[in-house]
């Protein structure tokens, strides 16, 4: 057994951490993440230059990694930096393009693309997708498409001839309305009305499930990174904030809660490791569902407890931790929330 990170991944983590600290310091984040285009073109280009995207795609498809651990390393760093760059969209796109045997090079080099799967009435489930294709023309609406604002290309899941298919659409051919999110970063509504597309996969179900699992793992790792930072900020605050003539961390009522937060974060770390190791294997879907379920619950706990133990300052815009807390809560609603993944697990239990 060895829980050490490989040297390559350690180097990637270090260089990413340095790059993110220089390029998107959290103090400047509010200016970037909440104003159009809700991310920074320069930071995006820098991330691509650094090779961060290569780590998300397997070698046989032209990447330099693509395993669960590669994904986890990258996203944990993005989470620590609270980086609003829509790397998740590229991860989903790379997985799908690879499954369709497409050239990944433009995306690896930093082309912005986004993946439209969820819809208003089917935020998480593939079966509920109502967008449909007649030949290669698409009609429907994709909602809260992460990274959709500013993407040049869209990959769209749509019903076609009784199967779930995958199409590529030029962003310019669809009606894309971009906006920022409450926790920062770009998203969009995508309206398709007899919009021309190009068929990439006739039966995309397996590829979509695989991509969504990779995406859910990435979000868990991102949350883990953000939780670690919040924990650090919380402990510092407990040591420095004084009330009643002593640091508030001297009150046992708060000590025990801060400790519980720490215990839960270790649970999150372990389940992320487990899911990362299982991704792509026979247990992958189950482990990812376990991870997204646990991390969803823990991330909310960490956010709420950290805010509460800060008092008023914890809910101010000026205080970076507040933005971490928002991300931690909102991450749950991406690619299946705690209830969604718990349901997957209960169904699997019944079938055991």
């Amino acid at each position: 057994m060895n829980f050490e990170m490989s040297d390559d991944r350690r180097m990637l983590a270090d260089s990413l951490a340095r790059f993110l600290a220089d390029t998107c310091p959290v103090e400047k984040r509010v200016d970037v993440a909440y104003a159009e285009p809700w991310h920074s073109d320069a930071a995006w280009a820098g991330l691509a230059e650094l090779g961060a995207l290569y780590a998300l795609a397997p070698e046989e498809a032209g990447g330099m990694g693509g395993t669960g651990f590669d994904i986890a390393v990258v996203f944990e760093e993005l989470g620590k930096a609270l980086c609003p760059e829509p790397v998740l969209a590229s991860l989903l796109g790379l997985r799908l393009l690879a499954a369709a045997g497409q050239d990944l090079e433009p995306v690896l080099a930093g082309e912005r693309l986004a993946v439209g799967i969820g819809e208003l009435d089917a935020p998480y489930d593939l079966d509920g997708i109502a967008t449909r294709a007649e030949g290669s023309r698409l009609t429907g609406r994709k909602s809260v498409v992460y990274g959709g604002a500013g993407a040049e290309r869209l990959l769209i899941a749509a019903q076609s001839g009784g199967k779930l298919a995958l199409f590529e659409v030029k962003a310019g051919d669809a009606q894309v309305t971009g906006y920022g999110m409450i926790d920062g970063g770009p998203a969009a509504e995508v309206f398709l009305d007899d919009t021309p597309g190009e068929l990439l996969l006739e039966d995309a179900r397996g590829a979509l499930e695989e991509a969504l699992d990779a995406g859910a793992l990435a979000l868990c790792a991102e949350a883990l990174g953000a939780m670690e930072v919040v924990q650090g900020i919380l402990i510092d605050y407990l040591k420095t904030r004084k009330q009643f003539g002593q640091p508030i961390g001297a009150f046992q009522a708060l000590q025990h809660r801060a400790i519980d937060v720490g215990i839960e974060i270790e649970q999150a770390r372990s389940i992320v490791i487990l899911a990362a190791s299982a991704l792509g294997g026979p247990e992958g879907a189950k482990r990812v569902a376990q991870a997204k379920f646990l991390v969803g619950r823990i991330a909310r706990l960490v956010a709420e407890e950290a805010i509460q133990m800060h008092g008023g300052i914890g809910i101010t815009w000026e205080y970076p931790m507040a933005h971490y807390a928002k991300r931690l809560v909102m991450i749950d609603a991406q690619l299946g929330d705690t209830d969604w993944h718990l349901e997957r697990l209960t169904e699997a239990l019944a079938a055991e």
Partner: protein
Amino acid sequence: MDLNFSPEEQAFQAEVKAFLAEHLPKEIADRVGRGEEPTREDMDRWHAILNDKGWLGGSWPKDFGGQAWGPIEQHIFEEECAKANAPRIVPFGLKMLGPVLMKFGSPEQQAEYLPRILDGRDWWCQGYSEPGAGSDLASLKTRAERDGDHYIVNGQKTWTTLGQYANRIFCLVRTKFDGKPQEGISFLLIDLDTPGIEMRPIRLIEGGYEVNEVFFTDVKVPVENLVGEENMGWTIAKFLLGHERTNIAGTGFSVQALAQVKALARQVKRRGKPLIENPLFAARLASVEAELEAVKITNLRMLSKAAAGGRLGAEPSMLKIKGTVIRQELNDLARRALGPAAAPFPSEDLDNLAIAPQGHAHNAGNYFNNRKISIYGGSNEIQRNILAKGMMQG
């Protein structure tokens, strides 16, 4: 035992409902129902409508223009207002300063300020907290030094809710610098137009603006603006803490929030079915509903005791804790029900896209903003300390 309101109370409830149906402006109720902050005009307008009816200071004694409502009537009124999506009555003048002046103010102060609270000429804000004095309020440092017939005030207040609309602030200030900190505090009324006062906005987590920092530099305040005697401020602050506890659990807000979440869960879908049919979500909803039903009864038990003249002990602190946690859970469900549709940063540009069903664009923002309710007004930890102290002494 009889869990029903008396016939008179029921009649009053019906009267309040009818009044709200007729007089609460629809556009204001709609805004509140959508989870948006009521505008300043909304609040002024609603106060004026209530004042015309004589209900704005309903729990004030008749001599001061009120109706002398008891705790149960006050509760019925607040509960019905919340259920009808009326804007919350701004509490600083009506529920805080008003009762303080009635108990500790001079006849001149009462005559000067009480009518202006009712008719809206004065908008008061509360200047207690400071950057270094939150839970430990007695450590406050803003100082008022006597200079002839004035105090000279220097220091800083913070978290001043709706200070941007206020023309006056009531402050706890330090007037004695030795001895026990509690013994050197005074209660001072300050006109915000006085030179030397600067107010700066604090933006909250979801992006909204409702609190401020207030800086005082050599601010001259006439001595007649002192309430009660010098160094009596802590007694006054403690009196206020024990006052007006009827709405502490905010059950009316929760009842309204629960109804909204239920309606939303019928509207949105998961796996092709209404969310309300999803067993996990339904379990969350049913759990919080059971909690709410219980806390409503705890609240009525307290009110009934208070109405019979009983002394309240642990009840307000318990209700503050339970009531806020339940409201926050409902806010969580309202956000959760939307799934990713909760994520867009609310803006008018997005309204016509109807990403979230109508009236729910602020669900995530409200969830974040309402983390405040377990922090202010004595945090839930401080409430537990109060309860623990009572337990160990009892």
